[in-house]
Structures are given as structure tokens and as C-alpha cells.
């Protein structure tokens, strides 16, 4: 079950992602950044908006991870 990360992209993808939240018939999409304090860093009304933010965050975190390992 535990994933073995063979590259930095997979590692980052496991730590920055969106999640669907359903409350009383209303759906929102949260963005999680495991590097951030509190981890849930934003909430969006649409999946697309959340995924767009996830994409940008992953690029940022991937660059940081790669820089840290150089």
C-alpha cells in the first residue's frame, strides 16, 4: 500500500493535491499543501479552479525539492 516514490514528481504529487468536500449537498474543492502550516491552503467552488492551483503549487514545490537535492 505504501507508495515508493521513484521520482520527485510523484513525491510532490502525493503531497500537493485537491480533495472534494461535501457538506449538506454542497460540494467544494480544497487544496492541500503538505508543506504548509494547516495544510488545507484554499477552498474553491470548482474542481477546475482547485486543480489549476494544485498545478501551480506542484511546480513551485517540485522546484524547491530539486533545488534542495542539488
Amino acid at each position, binding site marked *: 500500500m*505504501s507508495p515508493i516514490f521513484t521520482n520527485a514528481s510523484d513525491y510532490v504529487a*502525493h503531497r500537493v*493535491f485537491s*480533495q472534494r468536500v*461535501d*457538506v449538506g449537498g454542497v460540494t467544494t474543492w*480544497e487544496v492541500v499543501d503538505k508543506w504548509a*502550516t494547516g*495544510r488545507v491552503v484554499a477552498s474553491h467552488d470548482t474542481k477546475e479552479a482547485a486543480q489549476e492551483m494544485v498545478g501551480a503549487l506542484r511546480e513551485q514545490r517540485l522546484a524547491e525539492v530539486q533545488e534542495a537535492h542539488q
Partner: protein
Amino acid sequence: MSGYVYQDQDLVEPISDSVGEQWGNAALYNVLNVTGGSCALTYSASALTVDLAAGTITHYGSTVTVAAAPAGFTLVPDITNPLWTWLCISSTGTPVTVTGTASATPAVPEYGDRVPVALVYVQAGLTIANDASYKLEKRIAGFSGFNVGQMWAQE
């Protein structure tokens, strides 16, 4: 209410950081009177819904009454990949379903500022809630009660 909220080192599944954080924050976030049936879950045998029984929780140190919510949770499976889902209760006693991203090795989502009741592994194409591969229920009792229950019980 004020205090420090414990945050665990990030880990990978199935023992995720979220699981560890439940131990650390057990005094602030828990279900009271678990052994009395408080906030018990009933997984549908014909649909993707999960019933929530009435009960009482502690949310960030405050006691909150939870009303029964038939079909209060609905699992949202993916067609091709599995995912993890938290069944939680909000600060107002409302059921909250937090569905993670589907993947061959899915990450456990964050339950956030809510009281987690169960972590469910939803396999691809699931159609009946009770058939979910793993239903890890939180069974820790509040410290204001006497029943320190089993924290995780796999059904």
C-alpha cells in the same frame, strides 16, 4: 477555547500523518460515549451512502451535539482508481465527506478542522458502501467520559 494543535510529520499511507494527528489531538477532537453508540456509522448495503447516528463530539475542546443524519455521507468512487475518504463531523455537528484524489497509490486527504469518524478506502467502481475495502473507524472516547475505546477498528 485556545490551545496548540498538534501536527504530525508527514507520512505515507496507510499510516498517514492524519492518523498520527488524531492521537496527538485526541483531547481536543473526539467522539464522546463511543461505546454507547454515539455517532455510529451504518454503511448502506444497496447504495453509496452511510448513516450517521446521533451523538456528541468534542470539537477543538467544545462539546457539540450531533443529530442523526440518515445518508449523511455519500462515497464518491472513481471509475479507474481507488481513493481514501474521510467521514467527518464539522464544528456544528454536520456530516462532512472529504474525498481524496483517486490514484493507483492514493494519498489520504486532510480532514482539516473537523472530527474524523472513519477513514474509508473506496476501491474503483464501488457501488455499495458496505463493500468498501477498508472502513477504519475512529473509536476513541472523549476524556470527559470513562470509555477509552479502541482507536481504530477495521470492520
